């Protein structure tokens, strides 16, 4: 489950998209391939964001890569693309995109959209790193995972409680027997006292 690249683009409906910010993790490819793959990612991101209408989400597959696109449109006409492999779960990908866009809009002013090189948004790299493991980063998945772990812990707890019950049962029996025996002991002792009348 890997994310290869995340990018944010300015996608006005007239068609000319421009890349505002992007981050990529190409460590799984050999050093010589990285340049061309990076170009491919940029081209892929631009193409799919051009082909997506405003306010729409889409997933495009290309050989091994799937690009999830969310074209938010709105006043800023932003579009976010994430390129990942086929195993990456779809829903957290889209929620990542929404979160990323919200963050971007709050941190970068709209005036700098026309000058992409001036935009510095280092958080995008953090997002990329963090979301490599979606079960930790995505809230819903994390909650689900923790709940599952809790369920396992509870099952173990119930098993140990059952064992405790069995042990308690045996303890009850043994204490019953002991109590009877001590009663006998007391009676014997008493009898001995009363019977010995040798003065």
């Amino acid at each position, binding site marked *: 489950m890997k994310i290869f690249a995340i990018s944010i683009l300015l996608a006005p409906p007239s068609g000319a998209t421009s890349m505002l910010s992007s981050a990529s993790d190409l460590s799984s490819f050999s050093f010589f391939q990285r340049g061309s793959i990076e170009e491919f990612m940029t081209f892929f991101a631009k193409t799919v964001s051009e082909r997506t209408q405003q306010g729409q989400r889409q997933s495009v597959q290309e050989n091994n890569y799937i690009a999830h696109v969310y074209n938010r449109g709105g006043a800023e006409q932003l579009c976010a693309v994430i390129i990942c492999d086929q195993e990456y779960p779809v*829903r957290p990908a889209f929620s990542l995109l929404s979160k990323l866009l919200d963050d971007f809009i709050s941190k970068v002013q709209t005036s700098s959209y026309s000058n992409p090189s001036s935009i510095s948004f280092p958080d995008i790299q953090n997002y990329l790193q963090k979301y490599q493991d979606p079960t930790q980063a995505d809230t819903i998945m994390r909650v689900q995972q923790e*709940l599952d772990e809790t369920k396992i812990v509870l099952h173990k707890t119930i098993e140990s409680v059952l064992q405790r019950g069995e042990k308690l049962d045996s303890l009850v029996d043994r204490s019953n027997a002991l*109590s009877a025996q001590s009663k006998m002991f007391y009676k014997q002792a008493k009898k001995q006292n009363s019977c010995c009348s040798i003065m």
Partner: protein
Amino acid sequence: MASIQDRTHEFKTCVESIRTRSAVGNRGTEAKQRLLQNGRASPKSEFSRMASAIGKDISSTTLKLNKLGQLAKRKTLFDDRPVEISELTFIVKQDIASINKQIAQLQAHAKQQEAKNASTSAEGKLLEEHNKNIIMMLQSKLAETSMTFKDVLEVRTQNMKESKSRTEQFMYTASSAANHPPSMLYRGTPDPMGDGSPTKAFDPKGKSRASQNGDVLALDLDAAEEGVGSSNGGAFMQMQLVEQQDSYIQQRSTAIESIESTIAELGQIFQQLAHMVAEQGERVQRIDADTQDIADNVRMGHNELLKYWGRISNDRWLMLKIFGVLIVFFLLFILVS
């Protein structure tokens, strides 16, 4: 030359008199009166002009909405006209939005007038109230129209669902869900599927978009369209798009539902746990009572033994003496006899 009279002076006095007359009645719109260059005495203030414009817009929108409602009510399976319906919906939506804006402008204007108008005259106050009432009426009319619009949309989606289920019964293809598209996203391009030909002539954007759906196979799309062969192949793609939109939201909701059910399960497990522990608590109490009894019994037995031992240890000396005396007596008895 006498036929051409110069009546400018008269004209000017007329204008002045009418101006003063209308200025008394419309003190709040004095600034706007300067715009009435030709001296038209109509006291139509900017406000009433805007209000009447809005009223006209509202009535026209209502007409369009009625037409839309009629179209939406039609329940025929094949004669559905998605283009018209979607165009109409779009237009109506835009109209409602613009009317909204106009009403907001009107309200701002009225507030402006109110602020400017520091008059305490009864007329001025009546005017303000009148303006406010007009604004409220317009707003309520707009609200009515939007409610009707919403109802029409609901009826439309219901009909779509019904027709979808009916087509599923009749047409046994994998993509039979596509026969009746939602009209919201359709951008009003003319339906290229009128002659039933596959989408080669369709604009490539739509085609690529559809094939990028999660299903991947463009072949699937082609086969389905040829199988269906209806005029709604273009619309089929949009249905996929909407499904894509819906599916994200649906996935989210299913994920959250599963979390909810997990939490409920956990709650149940906790309850079971508590029950078992309570049951075991009762056993522990029994054990506790038993051990108390044991302790008591053992203690008392111990006491008895102590008493016995005490008695014996005290009496032994005496007993030895008694025995000794008895033995001496015995010996004496035997010796004597």
